[in-house]
């Protein structure tokens, strides 16, 4: 079975974004910290890549984005995003949320 590395990376990045925003609750998180956190996990990740995934998550209404006119983005988890991070709801395809391995 071939593994689509780009897909794994993209979907993992989305999950890590949700984790970062979950850890930052109840405040929203500014883009610099998000980018720095993602770079700590994927050293070669680009700012555009992170923004694309943030935008995807915003389209799925998991994340609320506040785009400042100066260009800086702020992210905050929505109720659905928090439920997803807390394993309260099922995860639809597109986000590499692992199974709840610590509960079994």
């Amino acid at each position, binding site marked *: 079975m071939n593994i689509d590395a780009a897909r794994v990376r993209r979907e*993992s990045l989305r*999950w*890590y974004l949700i*984790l*970062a925003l979950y*850890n*930052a609750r109840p*405040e929203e*998180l500014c883009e610099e*910290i998000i980018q*720095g*956190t993602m770079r*700590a*996990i994927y050293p070669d990740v680009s700012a555009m890549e992170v923004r694309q995934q943030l935008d995807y998550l915003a389209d799925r209404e998991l994340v609320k984005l506040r785009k400042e006119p100066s260009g800086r983005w702020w992210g905050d988890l929505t109720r659905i995003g928090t439920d997803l991070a807390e394993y309260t709801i099922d995860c639809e395809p597109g986000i590499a949320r*692992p*199974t709840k*391995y*610590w509960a079994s």
Partner: protein
Amino acid sequence: MRVEMELWHLITLLLAFFSCVGVFGRLLLGQFEKRQQERFAAQEVARKEAQAHWDERFASLDNSAKEWARVERDFLEFKAVLPMTYVIRDDYVRNQTVIEAKLDALALRLENAQLKGKL
């Protein structure tokens, strides 16, 4: 009308006139002196009041400066203790997310190894 007087009358009259002038002059000078004394006394009272005011003011400024120095020292101590007590929010978010990402990756590897029958 013709007035005639003896010399000693004239002398007595002049003496009386000058005595009168002298008495009036002395009264006048006495009044001057009294007013001046009152004025000086009032100035002295005002000066003392102003002095007390400025003493109080400088003392309060001095106390204020001491208080500011204390606040500044307390703040510097607080800044010195801060890194030992608190973690910056950015660091917390990054570290926590990285740890969770590593845990997830580890769980995935274990799962894969189990599926391959290596464990």
